[in-house]
């Protein structure tokens, strides 16, 4: 639920870039055992439906990225001026 609130603050024009980056982090991650199976199912369903750039899709990707690659995810969010608020919200 918290992630769904956070993604509402993401500007629409940055959603595609963010989604792409988060997918990249997840697919390259060596910490795949940290992915909860229900979250994996949600991501695959969203991907199948072409919804990984929607709020629900981004919330799932963000949650997974924070679990598997917290440093990389935070670093990316902090570097993007339009996503700085997302980084702050996640730190809270």
């Amino acid at each position, binding site marked *: 639920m918290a992630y769904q609130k956070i993604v509402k603050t993401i500007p629409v024009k940055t959603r595609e870039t963010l989604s792409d980056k988060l997918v990249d982090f997840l697919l390259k991650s060596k910490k795949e*055992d940290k*992915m909860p199976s229900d979250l994996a199912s949600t991501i*695959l*369903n969203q*991907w*199948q439906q*072409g919804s990984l750039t929607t709020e629900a899709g981004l919330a799932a990707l963000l949650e997974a990225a924070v679990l598997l690659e917290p440093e990389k995810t935070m670093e990316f969010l902090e570097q993007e001026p339009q996503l700085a608020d997302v980084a702050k919200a996640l730190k809270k």
Partner: protein
Amino acid sequence: MVKFGIEFVPREAYWKTIYYAIQAEKRGFNNLWITDHYYNRNVYVTLTAAAIYTKKIVFGPGVTNPYLINPVVTAQSLVSLDELAPGRVVLGVGAGDKTTLAATGIEIEKPLTAVVETVEIFKRMLEGKSVTFEGEVFKAKGTKFNFKPGGKIPIYVGAQGPKMLETAGKIGDGVLINASHPKDIDYAVDCIKKGVSEAGKKLTDVDVTAYTSFSVHENPEKAKEAAVPIVAFIAAGSPDIILERHGIDLEKVDKLRGALKTGDFGQAYGSVSPEMIGAFSLCGNPDMCIEQINRLLKAGMSQFVVGSPIGPNVRKSIDLISEKIIPHFKK
């Protein structure tokens, strides 16, 4: 029109393989092949997930073997998958990999006979009748499913040597040729033609599939770099007759084998020559790949399988294939 297939090795968590499978379907691939090795994720668990998350892509094991998985269980698995995804399932079967099977205590005996008998048992099990079979390698004694199998499941036979290629042409709906070079596909097609004609079929009745080691990137050097580890293992496992066909220095391959044996991967990969890369992989930028795929088409291929490594970044490479290679052949 040529079909495009893609091979995934389920060595990573299932959700990564399935992510790529969904992507492959979205990007216009016709076939999905999942490798079957005991040390990776189970092929049928992976295919079941693929069946659930895809809608039209045709899929199957690429390839399973009858030594580790009894033909009756293979039939059961494929028929069950066909119930989940009717009309989208194919069987890919071959004799198996000697080294991998040896690790499980299994010796490959009478590989040709084993594959022929597997195909026979598989076909008969699919008819839903009681099967009694007295083969040299396999036996069935009144073996029957307690349910009605669905429709036909095409059978692809994985082959490399002349006799297996000929047999594959004779008994298979398709042949999976483990090769990336036109010389090898030419040779394979000649063998397949013999089997096809013996069975009273035409070559076009059989899906002649080039199961390649493929790597694409806009920068050809990056594509080649990604192909090196795979090429090292293919070259090391190739018989001298194939190495000689490609004019590859046998001494270099011996060095490569030695390095792989001792686990010195740095030296092994360093001894992969441009000739080996050219012989055992199809790689480069999209234009270079198109040119090489065209050469395979001229040799008689009807399905092109993009096999490992696919590219330095699998996701980006699938997109590249979809944007720049497949459309060239679908015009």
